[in-house]
């Protein structure tokens, strides 16, 4: 037995305080009602997801949006951009299932994900989307490289194109469909936020790897994605109110700052120098990619911080209950 640290102690350490101590036993809420709790312990559980998951949110978004960029580039006759986006998407799609399988408690049972299709489970729906999207994108990409079986390649491109946007957005639904306050209360924004972030990632990655004379649409996609994302973050944080304060604290806050700095700087560099200079395109694209990875980490960590503190669970629920009683 390598790790026999008592379970509670482990859990308490995760909760950021040593077992048996309480930081506070009650607090005054915004509305002035006294809230009581049980020794400061969390009510909803923190997710058990490992760091593979936020990385997958990033690579999944990258793969999904790259398929869209690739498809539209192909249709518009920009084959240089189409091929680069296709390759970026294929690499991300190779990583996607690996990351998800690695996170499972029983990786050898990964095929159990395809035992059934459940519309009530975004993870079930997402598994099928990923299965279709990554399978078709990788196949199409291989066939293009081998230059054989053109009709099958086109079929693969069509499937990956259609399944791309759902792959980029379902992860937003996945985290919003939980009892974690900061995720659940942002259910109107998270799919949009993840869509913007995915578009920005795909645009930025394509801008890095495509010659500037063919990369215009990629740069504009990256910049538009960043602008949309910045707006959505503001809307989300405002709507969340005090539940959203985790985005200003701890690790979520740190990643949030990195996101803003990198995406704004990256989009700026792309907008100003990306058209003329390949070096600027590479630098700007890399900054946006770093920012988008940080965004996924910020959302991920915010969920843990939100679960950890019972105030975020109790106060909105008490307010809801009181409002109902008032009617």
């Amino acid at each position, binding site marked *: 037995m390598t790790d026999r640290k008592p379970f509670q102690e482990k859990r308490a350490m995760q909760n950021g305080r040593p077992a048996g101590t309480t930081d506070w036993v009650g607090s005054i809420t915004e509305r002035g009602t006294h809230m*009581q709790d049980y020794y400061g312990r969390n009510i909803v559980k923190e997710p058990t997801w490992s760091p593979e998951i936020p990385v997958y949110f990033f690579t999944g978004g990258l793969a999904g949006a790259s398929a869209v960029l690739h498809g539209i580039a192909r249709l518009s006759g920009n084959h240089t951009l189409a091929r680069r986006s296709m390759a970026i998407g294929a690499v991300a799609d190779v990583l996607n299932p690996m990351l998800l399988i690695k996170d499972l408690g029983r990786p050898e049972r990964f095929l159990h994900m395809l035992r059934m299709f459940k519309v009530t489970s975004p993870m079930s729906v997402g598994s099928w989307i990923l299965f279709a999207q990554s399978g078709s994108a990788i196949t199409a990409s291989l066939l293009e490289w081998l230059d054989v079986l053109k009709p099958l390649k086109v079929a693969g491109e069509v499937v990956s194109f259609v399944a791309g946007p759902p792959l980029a957005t379902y992860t937003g639904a996945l985290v919003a469909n939980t009892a974690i306050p900061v995720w659940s209360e942002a259910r109107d924004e998270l799919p949009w936020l993840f869509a913007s972030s995915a578009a920005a990632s795909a645009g930025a990655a394509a801008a890095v790897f495509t010659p500037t004379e063919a990369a215009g649409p990629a740069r504009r996609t990256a910049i538009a994605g960043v602008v949309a994302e910045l707006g959505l973050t503001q809307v989300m944080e405002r709507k969340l109110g005090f539940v959203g304060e985790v985005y200003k604290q701890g690790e979520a806050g740190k990643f949030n700052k990195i996101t803003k700095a990198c995406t704004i700087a990256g989009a700026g560099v792309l907008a100003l120098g990306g058209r003329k200079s390949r070096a600027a395109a590479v630098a700007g694209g890399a900054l946006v990619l770093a920012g988008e990875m940080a965004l996924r980490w910020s959302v991920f960590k915010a969920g843990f911080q939100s679960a950890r503190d019972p105030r975020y669970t109790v106060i909105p629920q008490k307010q809801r209950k009181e409002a109902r009683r008032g009617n």
Partner: protein
Amino acid sequence: MTSLAGPTQTYGAEAKPRMGFFTDTTICIGCKACEVACKEWNLIPEDGLLWTGESYDNTSHLGAETWRHVAFVEQRKPLRLEGETATVETDAAVQPEPLRWLMESDVCKHCTHAGCLDVCPTGALFRTEFGTVVVQEDICNGCGYCVPACPFGVIDKRDLPRSPDDAPLALPIFGKKEDGRVWKCTLCYDRLKGGHEPACAKSCPTDSIQFGELDELRERAEKRLAKLEAEGWNGAQLYGHDQNDGVGGFGAFFLLLDEPEVYGLPPDPVVPTAHLPKLWKQTALAATAMFVGVAAAFIGGRE
């Protein structure tokens, strides 16, 4: 409740009456016989022996290794609104303060609309013919989605014991883990199948944990509450009894003596999938918007 929330009965002629628990915390004496009986019957691993300093509660919360958890709350509040009450003298010069000690044996709520069951992608979590919610150990692949989907924080992933073979750099498919699945109360599905009551209810010396047909338990609880109210007990209230609440009522509900959050329970739990139809709509709109947005980026040419 939405059409997406899980069905409660799909067994047709094989369906049994819905079984559940009524946990009357007013007569709990905090003996923890339920915790012990549960651990023994269900062969739950040891999870650390630790003094928390939190009254007599050294178990702290429900989880993969704890399917019954007795909460202890020490309060400077009177047990009854009028009449005799226990007191504590903090200082000889001041009036003695009222004192009460609340105990509550917590358990999986076996919700009518269960978040864990709804989000389980493998079908490992299912609803039994008794209307209870159970994990199939041979199906669960440890994705962990049910853990944050439970509004009560009941279900959790078992990490211990770790195998020494669990090498950090092992390939994902071959990396051996002894467990890694999720676990929670089964309402003793095996005992129910054999016509026995769950281990916790069987072991409870005061009948604080009452097992039976849910409809009958609900009636019994209402009568009990009326009696306590007539006797002037402070804060007596049913929790999870209302079938119109956010989870459609609990299969295991409680009679409490204070607000739910005092015992570490959410005051107004809602199954996450209640919002899912709208959430899917937002997701589809966002996906469509992404198509349109990327297409728009192609206006203005290749450069």
